[in-house]
């Protein structure tokens, strides 16, 4: 019975990640505040990382798969036995790097948002657009005069 239910449950997990991606994309494009965009972008990158890890998962019948950690060093057959029951370690290594890079990018965006607030006094992109249009209009008038 469990063999038929487990793929269904894993499909639920996969579809949840995709739905999270869509909601986070909506947050990035539709919400006006830059802080909310940063929050949605972190959720977006985490969902993509989760999809990458999910691709490396596998179903081993009768037990949960082993984490990709070699414990039995002395036995020369240890890695071969581990490869039969362990999940794929490559996506996990890539995602580990991606999480750290995402942290650095988020810190950069936080700093840029702070500077935007210091210069313009708002973090809403709608107000920023209005301010930008106002400045451009004044410059055009100056050129005409």
């Amino acid at each position, binding site marked *: 019975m469990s063999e038929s239910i487990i793929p269904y449950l894993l499909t*639920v997990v996969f579809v949840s990640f995709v739905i999270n991606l869509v909601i*986070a994309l909506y947050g990035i494009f539709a919400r006006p505040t830059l802080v909310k965009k940063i929050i949605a972008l972190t959720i977006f990158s985490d969902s993509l990382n*989760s999809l990458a*890890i*999910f691709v490396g998962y596998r179903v081993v019948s009768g037990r949960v798969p082993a984490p990709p950690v070699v414990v039995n060093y002395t036995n020369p057959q240890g890695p071969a036995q581990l490869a039969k029951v362990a999940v794929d370690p490559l996506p996990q290594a890539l*995602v580990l790097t991606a999480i*750290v890079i995402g942290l650095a990018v988020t810190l950069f965006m936080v700093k840029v948002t702070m500077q935007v607030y210091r210069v313009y006094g708002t973090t809403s992109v709608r107000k920023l657009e209005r301010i930008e249009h106002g400045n451009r209009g004044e410059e055009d008038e100056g050129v005409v005069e």
Partner: protein
Amino acid sequence: MIDLIAALLMAVAAVTSIVFTYLAVVEKNLIQAVVFSAVQSTMYALIYFLLMAPDIVLVYLPVGVGIYPAIILLLIKKTDKVDE
């Protein structure tokens, strides 16, 4: 049996993360949105653990639940408090 329980927990955590992602995106109060985002990160950490990625859990739990909310709360403290 244990693999069925692991998959069931994974599905529950994934569906809960959808709820908290939605709340984090539509919430007007930015501080509450950050808290919802941290709860969603906790759900993801649980899913990573059940997907047999213990090293990812060790990195993602401090980053997703500790550092991201901390720096975004600092940002909110210095800028607007409310989404418009």
